[in-house]
Each structure stands twice: as C-alpha cells, then as structure tokens.
C-alpha cells in the first residue's frame, strides 16, 4: 500500500482543521485528500456509496480497500510516522470498543464541536 485516499467533509470546520494538521505530519504512507460527494470522488470511486461518506470519515487504499468510520481514523493514524504505534494500541481488542465509541461520538457531533471550538466557517 503506497497511498491512502481520504474522503473528507469540507463543510465541517473540525475536518478542515484536522486536514491542515495532517498535511504537515511526516508520513509512512502518502495521504491524498478528496472532498466528499464531489465529481472527483465519484469519478475515482464509481461503485462507492457516496451518500454514506457524509456520515463518517472514509479512507480508501490504492488497492480499493475501503475503511469506514473508526477504522478510517485508525488507518490515518497508521499512515503517520509519529502515530503508527498509537494506531496499533487503539486497535487492540481491549481499546477498540472505546476507540469506536469516542470516534463515532466525535464524527456524529462534528458540526457542534466545530461551532463550539469556533472552527465553523
């Protein structure tokens, strides 16, 4: 695997902030970012359910493996030099349920969080 494509929500301030942070991180696997539900996303993944990508973060590898929600977050961490350790730690059976809960909660309330943190447009 040499590239991960991240389908992110450009209308969410938190996502834009995270995207900016990601761009600066040293990476073990290249991360390409495409805004969700755009022509570029539909062209690249014609068979993907693009309505679902609005619900939670979606990451697709260059081989076409789709990671959705908490798994997508873990894959993004895994791609970063400094956080690969953390990806494995958070993916262990003991921590995975907590990881899922926290990540789903953040994704679900991303607009509220963005507003509260003053990141909304």
């Amino acid at each position, binding site marked *: *695997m040499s590239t991960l494509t991240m389908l992110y929500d450009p209308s969410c301030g938190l996502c834009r902030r995270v995207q900016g942070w990601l761009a600066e991180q040293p990476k*073990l696997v290249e991360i390409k970012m495409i805004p969700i539900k755009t022509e*570029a996303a539909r*062209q*690249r*993944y*014609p*068979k*993907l359910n693009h309505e679902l990508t609005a619900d939670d973060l979606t990451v*697709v*590898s*260059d*081989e*076409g*493996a*789709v*990671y*959705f929600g908490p*798994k997508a977050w*873990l*894959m993004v961490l*895994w791609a970063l030099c400094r956080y*690969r*350790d953390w*990806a*494995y730690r*958070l*993916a262990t059976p003991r921590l995975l349920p907590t990881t899922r809960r926290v990540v789903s909660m953040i994704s679900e309330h991303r607009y509220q969080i963005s507003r509260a943190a003053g990141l909304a447009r």
Partner: protein
Amino acid sequence: MTIGIATYLLYLAISIALTVWVARTLHKSGRIFLVDVFHGNEPLADSVNHLLVVGFYLVNLGYVSLALKLGYEIASPKESIEALSVKVGTVLLVLGGMHFFNLFIFSRMRHRATMRNAPPPVYPDAFTPVQEV
C-alpha cells in the same frame, strides 16, 4: 615503583581490559541486530555498528581517564586493593549503564524498522474499484 603507581597501573589495566571486553561483546552481538534493522544491508550495518562501538570506547575510556586520580596516599596493599575495588566498581557501573543504553538504542532502531513495514491495524470494511484519472 611505589604502591600508589602500581595501583594506578593496575586500575588502568583492569578498566581498559573490561572496556575492550564489553565493546567487543557489543560489536559481535549487536551486528546481527543491525543487519536485521537494515534489512540485510550488511555494509550499512557494519558501519553503524562500528560508529556505535567507537562512541562506546570514547565515553568509557574518557571516564576511566577522568576517574584515575585517587586524591590520597596509599600506604599498604590493603588500602591499594580497597581503592582499586572502588574505582573498578564505578567503571563497571558506568560500563553497565552504557551497555544498557546501547541495547536501548538497538531495540529502538529495530522497533522503528519493524513498524515501517507493519501491516494495517484493521481489516477493510469493503472493496471498491478505483478509477485512476
């Protein structure tokens, strides 16, 4: 030769011999580790190994040299042995500390190298065809 000079010479001989022994152990056993870290790139592993051992020698011999001075006169063989045991004891502790520090470096390098090629932490949820544009 006074007993004081003899003590110093004995101290140097023991300390240098110990340093050489530990450095050689490190050099011999560390190599396998480094070859693994650098994915079988033996020239690179040998080079890094050599550099580490040189650093090891410099730090240890530097310490041995700095710690030579006793600061008091030695009158009897008993005092000589006591002084030697204190000096050699501290040299051994410094050597031990340096040795573990080197092991720590080795294991961290190895950990990083294995991380670099580690598989994804989770299985994909689905597969989708990719249309390269």
